């Protein structure tokens, strides 16, 4: 028998441990990394009153046990305006695994603003969860209908979390990220930039002034060029002909304030570059004007 045949035979006689299948599935399930799909949201200036917020809370209290539990741990009132977790819950079923942290703002000295923003966040997250659950159910049905079995079915993971990107006495800026993973996975982000004193949400015009469009357009174009000069291969932005960046549409372009108090403009995946490049961020060096 030839050397190669012998070695091949020996190699193929390596025993496969029983746990292998489990190890592989667990690794796929746990580490399926959420790919970014960033959706631009124009924030509705819904005028929710305290009463509607209250009504929503009652509904949630009655329908969601974990929410009721979380509400028992309402944080103690401090002095500085802050973003905190108003509810946190986990839900596990055959269909999905939910992990959600819902933020709210408090101590802004503007109850009306707090109610409005908190209601807006809370209802947005409820909608997102409903949609995600529905998609998870559809996905499960599709798997089962096409001959899949529940034995190796991996529930959809739905994760909602938030991050405060900047905060001082005047401004709070934070981003809520929702991710969902199943056969394919995606992520959506929602940006909140709040002017605490005036009780409004900030637009690019508020933070960069009337010339906001010129400032952002010039800076983004300049940085795209710089990135391409440094490393063209990893910075294949679309050209204008291909639907690439040609200027922002309006002052409601997604952005957040970063830790250095600079405006960071955000473009969703596929918006100005191929998908593999993910979310694109551009820090605008100009001082913000509030």
């Amino acid at each position, binding site marked *: 028998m030839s050397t190669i045949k012998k070695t091949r*035979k020996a190699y193929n006689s390596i025993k496969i441990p029983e746990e292998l299948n489990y190890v592989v599935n667990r690794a796929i399930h746990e580490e399926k990394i959420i790919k970014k799909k960033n959706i631009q949201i124009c924030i509705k200036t819904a005028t929710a009153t305290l009463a509607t917020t209250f009504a929503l809370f009652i509904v949630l209290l009655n329908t969601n046990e974990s929410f009721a539990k979380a509400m028992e741990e309402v944080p103690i009132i401090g002095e500085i305006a802050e973003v905190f977790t108003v509810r946190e819950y986990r839900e596990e079923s055959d269909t999905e695994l939910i992990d959600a942290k819902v933020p709210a703002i408090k101590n802004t000295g503007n109850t009306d603003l707090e109610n409005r923003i908190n209601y807006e966040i809370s209802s947005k997250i409820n909608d997102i969860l409903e949609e995600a659950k529905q998609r998870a159910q559809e996905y499960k049905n599709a798997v089962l209908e096409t001959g899949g079995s529940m034995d190796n079915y991996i529930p959809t993971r739905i994760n909602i979390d938030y991050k405060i990107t900047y905060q001082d006495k005047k401004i709070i800026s934070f981003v809520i990220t929702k991710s969902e993973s199943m056969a394919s996975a995606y992520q959506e982000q929602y940006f909140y930039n709040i002017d605490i004193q005036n009780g409004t949400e900030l637009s690019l015009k508020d933070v960069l002034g009337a010339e906001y469009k010129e400032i952002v357009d010039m800076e983004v174009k300049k940085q795209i060029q710089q990135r391409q000069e440094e490393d063209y291969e990893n910075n294949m932005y679309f050209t204008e002909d291909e639907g690439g960046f040609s200027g922002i549409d309006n002052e409601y372009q997604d952005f957040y304030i970063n830790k250095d108090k600079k405006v960071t403009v955000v473009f969703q995946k596929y918006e100005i570059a191929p998908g593999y490049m993910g979310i694109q961020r551009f820090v605008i060096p100009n001082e913000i004007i509030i």
Partner: protein
Amino acid sequence: MTHIAQEILVEYIKKNEEKLYRIAYTYTKNQENALDVVQEAITKSLENISKLRNEEYVKTWFYRILINEAIKASKNTKSFIDYETITNELSSQSNENELIENIDTFAIIQKLKPKLKTVIILRFFENLKIEEIAYITKTNTNTVKSRLYKAIEEIRKDLEESSV
């Protein structure tokens, strides 16, 4: 692109888990570490799938990650060959002589230096093309070929010695 690549990758991993395990085991020389290597490679590949430009390379790209992980893990493993473990972890054949032969042969493969081991596994056990192996090992086709000759020569010599 990323979604497609990710789906291809997951499907590929699921279909080939036994192959992947055998590769890992050949480096780590024990079951526990081989399972860790497979797990680590899956995690890393899914985390980095966005860096993959062309989904045609999913397979070779994954091999590269797996082999890097396996080599990394093998550095922490004892270097001598434990015949008792091999005997337990090679499936028993009907013929005792065959088993003994397999054990000897396998011990020889395990003894090879990682670079030579990699080309043998990929070329003869995974049936990959020389070009693909060059991509995985970040070398060129000439290097792959010369490593192959060297590896075969070493195995042949060892086999002859063990059969004397």
